[in-house]
């Protein structure tokens, strides 16, 4: 099993004729994903590696069933593209685009909620269920993706797209495959937070443990810690907190748009405290993660 995407998951790419999107299409197809169509306004009738291009999302959804969309258009057009996907009834929308103003993002998320759709991102690399499919640029080419990701029972959620691959690569090297890995996005407001995705992993019979990569800034870690405490979640979680040096540099933005220390609760040290208080193990470096995952699963079985 996996969450969000599997072998039969069919998706489209909005902005498919862009330079990076063309590469992404190729990578997803090579990996075995079902990219069924793409959208670039004014380019109807063309194709990208055999994937037909349309002018609008509705032109596609009127003639075939679509489970999801990857939005990879320039920031100025992203608001419109996501609205279009929501309006066409698409249920899972991965927003790759960075630098979308947060007022627009917040509005899109509220609208998606009303229409029963889920947004992943913005500013993310997408989702992969290793061996089944990937939705977005996560992992890169099929060959590179297969080097870093293997199928297995560890779920991964990360604010950093690159670190999703780094962590999965480390897990794979230690013989720990992944059920689904999600690059959730580095923006201050994102469609799906750790705590919002955790129930999906909990409900997945294949996922036995979870790895979470986080950074200073924002309340998402404390939301996760609170969720785990309040629900007595039994899924073992191992976290890694990058950017501890930022605690001494308030008001400075590093890494991602959402990565800024504005008050005590944004600091790495405070987040680590909250996560540990909720029973989540926090790794000191990436290489420790596999062993922490293994022992957390063992302890969980005994408990």
């Amino acid at each position, binding site marked *: 099993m996996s969450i969000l995407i599997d072998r039969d998951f069919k998706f489209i790419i909005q902005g498919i004729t862009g330079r*990076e999107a063309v*590469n992404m299409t190729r990578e997803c197809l090579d990996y075995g994903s079902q990219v069924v169509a793409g959208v670039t306004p004014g380019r109807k009738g063309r194709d990208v590696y055999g994937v037909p291009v349309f002018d609008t999302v509705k032109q596609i959804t009127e003639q075939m069933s679509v489970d999801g969309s990857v939005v990879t258009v320039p920031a100025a057009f992203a608001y419109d593209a996501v609205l279009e996907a929501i309006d066409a009834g698409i249920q899972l929308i991965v927003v790759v685009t960075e*630098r*979308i*103003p*947060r*007022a627009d993002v*917040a*509005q899109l*998320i*509220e609208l998606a909620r*009303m229409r029963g759709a889920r947004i992943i991102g913005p500013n993310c*690399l997408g989702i992969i269920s290793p061996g089944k499919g990937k939705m977005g*640029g*996560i*992992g*890169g*080419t099929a060959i*590179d993706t297969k*080097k*870093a990701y293997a199928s297995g029972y560890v779920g991964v959620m*990360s*604010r*950093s*797209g*690159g*670190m999703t*691959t*780094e962590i999965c*690569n*480390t897990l794979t*090297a230690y013989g720990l495959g992944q059920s689904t890995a999600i690059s959730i996005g*580095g923006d*201050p*407001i994102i469609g799906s*937070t750790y705590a919002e995705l955790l129930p999906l992993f909990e409900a997945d019979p294949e996922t036995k443990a979870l790895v979470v990569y986080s*950074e200073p800034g*924002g*309340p*998402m870690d404390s*939301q996760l810690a609170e969720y785990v405490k309040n629900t007595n979640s039994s899924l073992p979680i191992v976290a*890694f907190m*990058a*950017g501890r040096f*930022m605690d001494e*540099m*308030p*008001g*400075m*933005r*590093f*890494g*991602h*748009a959402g*990565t800024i220390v504005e*008050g*005590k609760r944004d600091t790495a040290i405070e987040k680590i405290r909250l996560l540990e208080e909720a029973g989540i193990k926090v790794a000191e*470096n*990436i*290489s420790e993660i596999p062993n922490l995952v293994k022992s957390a699963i063992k302890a969980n079985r005994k408990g």
Partner: protein
Amino acid sequence: MRFYEHEAKSLLKLHGLPVPEGKVAKTDSEVEEISREITGPVVIKSQVLSGGRMKAGGIKFADTPSEAKVAASTILGLQIRGQLPQSLLVERKIATVNEYYLGVTYDAIAKSPIILFSDMGGIDIEEVANTYPQHLARTHLSNIEPFSDYKAKEIISSLGLTGSDLMKLTSILVKLVTLFRRYDLTLAEINPLGKLSTGELVSLDCHVDMEDESTSRQLALLNELSIPATEVRQGRPATDFEVRGMEVDSIDPRGVAGRVVEFDGNIGLVIGAGGGSLTLFDAIRNHGGQAANYCEIGGNPSVRKAYELTKLILNKPGVAKIAVMMNVVSNTRVDIMARGVIKAVVDEGHDPAEKIAIFRIPGSWESEGFKILTKYGVDFVDRSVSLDEAALRAVNKVKAK
């Protein structure tokens, strides 16, 4: 983008929100002159981007123009968290009978704006929330539904206010929410909002943050307030080195090679991507290394950007060696990074084998990249060596020198 207080006040004033009579000065004589025009006691406020001005001595009161001049020359030379004032704001000193707090910001969990109102203004709002929660009211705004006066009245009256206080506060809060929305602000805060003995309200201090992502669509306002749209305003103004890093990143629109932050160590870091840079910077510090800089590379930058960024870091005074490290890359190409970095090192007259302490970028196009590195004798490692271990090796090499 954080606004200086005087800019934030100009914004409030433009939209009919009450601010004290005042002017901006650059020198102590200007302060003396403004103080004379105001006739009466004044307050002189250091214009810096960080908080804690009062405690640091960056705000002083004066009864006469000559006192104001003396106070001004002290503040002009006073660093607050490493920043000298951009200017001084001189305002008429105002006596209040009561102080309020009004703020609008985003709640990342609710994913919508949140309004905070307190009848205990003048102190830190987190302190009010923790110590006097009964004096803090909050409400979320829909991102889709319109905001109207009744919502403002509900939150203000929830703390027991009524009569003309309620009506005046409502009018101010509605204007503040309108500003927040119209100008893509991420924070609009008036603290304190002072009540005079006449019942009038005045914004004694305020904070405004505009989203960096939105400055390009808010140029009209930024121009009107004479704020340079491209100026980077974080917890402190950017250094020359950091400004040059931004110039490198804007050479072409392909990928990212910049976001440089200056430190004073001897290990030049050519690192990426966002999360990888954070992880690596921590690792360098944990192993006792002194970084000369922070930076970010990602999203498949051009050879030229990798080249210019490397050159910038290489030429920073005090840099002994550079460490070139990233997490396993998916779209940034290892060969492009290798070419850009090596060309910069060679052009600056160094031997890549000696100057590059370690090269750890595995992933996309790695076999092509590793060939180039081998040719120049650069010490490189593949994905079997962790970020942490690569950082350790870099630190040891620089120490051994």
